[in-house]
C-alpha cells in the first residue's frame, strides 16, 4: 500500500521538476541563440545594495534569536508528530489514554511556558 502510494508521488515529482526546468531551459536556449541579451559585465553582476558597493560577504554569523525559534520549532514539531498516532486512534481508546495524552500535551505546554518565562519568545 505505502510503496504504491509513494511511487505515484515519485511520478508526480518528475512533473514537478519538469515544470520549472522547461522555462529555464527555454530562457537558456534563447541565450544560446542570441535571441535574448547576454552581455554580463562586472557592474551588472555586482551584488545589489541599493546603489552602494556591497561590503564583504553575507556568509557569516547571524543573530542568535533566529536560533532560539528554530530550536523551539524542532522540539514542538517532533512532539506534535508523536501525537499524530494517538490522534488517529484516540476515539476508539479507553478514557485513561486521554489522560496520558493530556500529560504529554501538558509537558509541551509547560515547555512553552518555560520558554516564555525565559524570554525566548521575545523578539530581541
Amino acid at each position, binding site marked *: 500500500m*505505502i510503496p*504504491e*502510494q509513494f*511511487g*505515484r*508521488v515519485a*511520478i*508526480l*515529482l*518528475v*512533473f*514537478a*521538476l519538469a*515544470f*520549472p526546468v522547461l*522555462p*529555464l531551459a*527555454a*530562457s537558456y536556449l*534563447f541565450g544560446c541563440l542570441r535571441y*535574448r*541579451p*547576454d552581455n*554580463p559585465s562586472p557592474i551588472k*553582476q*555586482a*551584488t*545589489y*545594495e*541599493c546603489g552602494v558597493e*556591497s561590503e564583504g560577504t*553575507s*556568509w557569516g554569523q*547571524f543573530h542568535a534569536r*533566529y536560533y532560539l*525559534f528554530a530550536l*523551539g*520549532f524542532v522540539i*514542538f*514539531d517532533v512532539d*506534535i*508528530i508523536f*501525537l*499524530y498516532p494517538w*490522534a*488517529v*486512534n*484516540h*476515539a476508539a481508546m479507553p478514557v485513561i489514554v*486521554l489522560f496520558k*495524552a*493530556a500529560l504529554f*500535551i501538558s509537558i509541551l*505546554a509547560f515547555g*512553552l511556558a518555560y*520558554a*516564555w518565562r525565559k524570554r525566548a*519568545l*521575545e*523578539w530581541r
Partner: protein
Amino acid sequence: MSRAALPPATPMARQILDHRSLLQRARTLPGEARVALALLGIMTVAALAAVGYLVIAGTLDGRWYDIRDLGNGTSHLVYWMERQGWHPAIPYLTTGLLGGLGILSLVGGWLVIGSWVERRLLAKFQIRQGPNRNGPFGLLQPIADALKLIQKEALIPIGADRLLYYLPPVLIFIPAMLGWAPVPWAARMSYVDMNVGVVYAIAISSLGVLAVFLAGWSSNNHYALLGAMRTVAMMVSYEIPISMTLLSVVVLTGSLQLSQIVAWQQQYHVWLIIVLPLAAFTFLFASTAEINRTPNDIGEAESEIVAGFHTEYSGMKAGLFLAVELGNAILVGAMMATFFLGGYTLFGLETWIPGYLILATKIGAVYFVFVWLRGTLPRFRLDQLMGFAWKFLIPLAIVQLLVVAVEALVIEQSGLPGVATVSGAILVNALLTFFGVRAWANAIGYRPEAGASTPILTTAVGGLRAAARLQAVP
C-alpha cells in the same frame, strides 16, 4: 449640483464613470447576437435536462463517461488494461501520468490566468482598473509578462554560489506540485488517496523553507539573507499552529486520510469550520504566513528589504518565484476547503454537480479571501507575527486540542445520537472560541479600552518593550 453634472477629472475617473455592467452591455447587442445567445441558452438548458434525466434514471452511475467523477474513466481504463493481460506496471504508470498531467495542467493553467485574476481583484479593492490593455479585459497580460521574463538577461551575481543559486527556483515548485497529491476531487478521484494524507501535507509544505533559505543564502546578498532568515523563522513558527490545528481535526475525524475527513463532514452534514472555528481561523491565518502572502509576507517586504530572498534573481528565475506564490495560494485553498469547508461535497448537491467543480469553487472562495486580506491589511511587523504565533495561536491550539479530544470521546463512545453530540461540540467550541480568545488576549495584556491609537495588542504579543517605551515618550 448633482454628481453627474461634474465632468470627470481624469481619464481613470472617466473610465470608472463610463463603466457598464455585462447586463447593460447585453441590452445593446445586435439582433443576430441575441438570437445566437438565446439558442445557446436553450441548448444549455436542454443538455442540463438530459444530464438530469440520466442522473435520476441512474444510467450514468459508474460508467466511463460519467464525468461527475473522473475516477470512473480511469478505473475503467485500468480494468481494460488488466483484461489485456498486461504487466501491472502499465496501468499504474498510465494512471500516474494521467493524474500528473491533470495536476500539471491545473497548476500551469492557474499560473497563466492567476496573475491576471489577482491583479484585477486587487485593482478592484483599491478602486483601480488593473491590467486592461493586452487582449479583452487585459486577459493576455500574463502571457505578455511570461514572454518578457523569458527574454530577459539571466544575470548571476559574482559572489553567488552558482550551483545553489540555480536550484531554488526549481526546488520551490516541489511543494507546490506535490501537495496536490492527496487532495480528493470527487469520491473516487484523487491522485493518491494516501492513508497518511495529513502528515504528508504537513511534511511537503515544510519543504518550501529549504528552497527559500537556499535562495537567500546562495545569493550572497545582505537583503536576500535577511529576507530568507525572516521567512524561515516565520514559516517554522507558523508550522506549529498548523500542525496543532490539523491535529485537532484528526482527533475529531479519527483519520489521516483526506477523503475520510471529507466523509466525516458528509456523514454529520456539517463543515468543520462550524465545528472548529478557532482551528479554521488559525489555519487560514497561519497558512498565509506559510505561503508568504501579504499581510504576512515579511520575508519579501518591498519597503524594507528590496525583494527579500529573491532580490538577486532576475528574468525567468524571478518569474518562477512569483509564479509559485500563485500556485501555493490555490494549494492552501484546496487544503482549507478539504479540511474545513467540506471538500468536494455540498450537502447532497455533489450527486448533480461534479465534485471537482464544487472543490474548485471553494478554492476560488478561499483564494478570494486571500486577495481580500492582501488588499485590506497592512503588512505586520516580524516581532508581531512571531509573537502572535507563539503566544496567541499555539496556547489556544493546545486548549482547543484538549477540548476536542474530550468531544471526540463523547461523540464516539457515549452512545448518544450523533446530532446531539456534534451540536454540543459546536456549541462548546463556539463558546471556547469567543471567550477563550477574549480571555487569553486579556491575560497577555490586551486592553481594548486603552485607545485605538496605540497598538496595544501588537505590543503585548510582540513583546517589543522598545515600542512601548517609544510610545511613552511624549
